[in-house]
């Protein structure tokens, strides 16, 4: 009875330790795994919890907070179709709902496992609350995922710095940015690490910078220990040297005003990257991005992965793949044609594996 009482004390919102174990999933029937010769395809995709480009209140000037199963399922089917078409071997997802009221408690991850070819997945919550009494959000369980054909071991949730520009109460119920990590061993090749980050989108202080520093410090540690990794995700930051760094007007909702005398704030939260434009430089300096910086800078539009505006083309780059080993030259693809599937485009690249000695 006492243990029942303890287990039933679910808090209204979940706080996280610095490091926690991930939740592991496995397909009910394991699919055959093709043996790679020297490389595998890796993909990162922020799937916007399976609502496609629907006008959600939180990021697209929409009036809707919750969506019905009938509204969510066609978008999830599109995501599944895209995954089955692109066929990555390792998939890093951000904004994956597993039990949220806003998506009618659809388990996006379970649906993706059941309807693709992946055998294993690891999930960590980024935003978990029994009830959020704001905008009708209600119950929330959204997080990050690593999907793999091969078993994922030692998968952890690494908590990132809390937003410094929020009150304690708001922060308690708000999402807690994190990294999901895991190790993957492919027969015949050395084990490698996978790190999937979803950095803060709307912080207006140096929280994002802290997230990149924490991310890089984890990569540095693996590198220093002789390991190799695939690291990526939605960094919510522009590459250094981007031509356009202020998206207040693009992201402005009806009735909002920015940049005018007397406007407070002057910039829309999460839309002005100007003071942050060099924050990813250390990552580029230390590791290899699937889309090299010089190539991006020469033809930026070709690598845009995000827009807040339903019906508009991508207008900025926020999604990345890095490694300390090697990408197959020119193997990267920014899947910009998947415009209606999410507010982010997936990015893929082929990752060279290290042969086992």
């Amino acid at each position: 009875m006492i243990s029942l009482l303890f287990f039933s004390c679910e808090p209204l919102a979940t706080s996280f330790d610095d490091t926690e174990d991930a939740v592991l999933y496995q397909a009910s029937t394991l699919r055959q795994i093709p043996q790679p010769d020297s490389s595998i395809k890796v993909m990162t995709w922020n799937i916007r919890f399976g609502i496609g480009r629907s006008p959600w209140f939180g990021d697209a000037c929409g009036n809707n907070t919750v969506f019905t199963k009938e509204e969510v399922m066609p978008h999830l089917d599109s995501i599944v179709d895209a995954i089955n078409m692109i066929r990555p071997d390792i998939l890093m997802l951000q904004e994956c709902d597993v039990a949220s009221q806003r998506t009618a408690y659809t388990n996006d991850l379970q649906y993706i496992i059941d309807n693709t070819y992946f055998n294993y997945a690891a999930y960590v919550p980024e935003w978990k609350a029994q009830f959020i009494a704001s905008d009708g959000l209600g119950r929330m369980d959204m997080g990050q995922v690593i999907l793999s054909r091969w078993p994922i071991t030692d998968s952890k949730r690494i908590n990132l710095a809390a937003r410094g520009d929020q009150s304690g109460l708001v922060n308690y119920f708000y999402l807690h940015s994190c990294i999901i990590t895991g190790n993957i061993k492919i027969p015949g090749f050395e084990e490698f690490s996978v790190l999937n980050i979803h950095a803060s989108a709307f912080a207006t202080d140096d929280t994002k910078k802290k997230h990149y520093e924490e991310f890089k410090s984890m990569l540095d540690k693996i590198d220093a220990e002789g390991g190799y990794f695939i690291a990526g995700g939605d960094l919510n930051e522009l590459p250094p040297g981007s031509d356009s760094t202020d998206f207040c007007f693009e992201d402005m909702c009806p009735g909002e005003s920015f940049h005018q005398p007397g406007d407070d704030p002057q910039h829309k939260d999460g839309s002005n990257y100007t003071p942050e434009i060099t924050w990813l430089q250390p990552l580029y300096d230390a590791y290899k991005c699937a889309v090299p910086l010089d190539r991006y800078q020469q033809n930026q539009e070709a690598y845009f992965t995000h827009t807040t505006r339903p019906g508009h083309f991508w207008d900025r780059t926020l999604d990345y793949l890095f490694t300390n080993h090697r990408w197959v030259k020119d193997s990267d693809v920014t899947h910009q044609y998947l415009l209606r599937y999410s507010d982010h485009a997936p990015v893929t690249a082929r990752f060279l594996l290290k042969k086992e000695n």
Partner: protein
Amino acid sequence: MKRTFLAFALLLIFTALLQAQSQFTGRFMGYNTAYLLPEKKWESGIRQPLRVGLSQKAEIYSTVLALPLTPNAGIKIAWGELGGFRFATAHSLSVPSPVLNMLSRNGIGGFISPEFTFPFILSINNSVLASRPLCYSALLTIKAEFLFALRGGEIDPQSTIDLPIMYPRMAHYYKGTSVRLAANVRAPICHKAGVEEGVEVFMITRSGNNFFAENTGYVYWKMCKKMRLKAGYNLSYGSYPFGNHWQLWPSVDLLLGNLR
């Protein structure tokens, strides 16, 4: 282990002695029993409704703090005794539409998404209560309650507040009739304090998310002549839209009245 058992046994004996010696104010006038408040007596809590004794036959009640946003009123009628049980029925009406529309809003306080608008809802509650004194001055009450709602239009099933305690009590606004069966025992500990332990099951006449159960326990403490503190727990289990769920929550109320 032996020490724990000994301490527990001593506590039980001590409690029983106190129970045998005491009489607890309000035991037979408590909320959720078949007993009515005597004429001109009243009691109200912050969450518990204001009850006013009209006569030996009738008591009226209303949750006063909720009145502006949830107009509500009820009457409890005494029907006499049979087989050692005292019987009463309670009948109440409430209109939750204004509070639901207020909670459907943007920003903090938005329990429900602002995209939902609630039509007129009239919630009708009828219950039968039977109480019987037990040994050690304890009182057993059993209750059967039937709730249904008249709705002025369709209510979106996604506009629910999926929280324990709230969800089962609002279920009949959306679909089905709610049948609740409850039993509680209350007993004095000393002249200033009493305890109450109860169980309640909620069954909703619909195909899913239709069963809930609660176990509640309270200690009453008479702080002064007109004020009692009620504190305890609510342990709930139920089938919610997100799955089956256990929850333990504390429960506190302050009761005011002129029972003595």
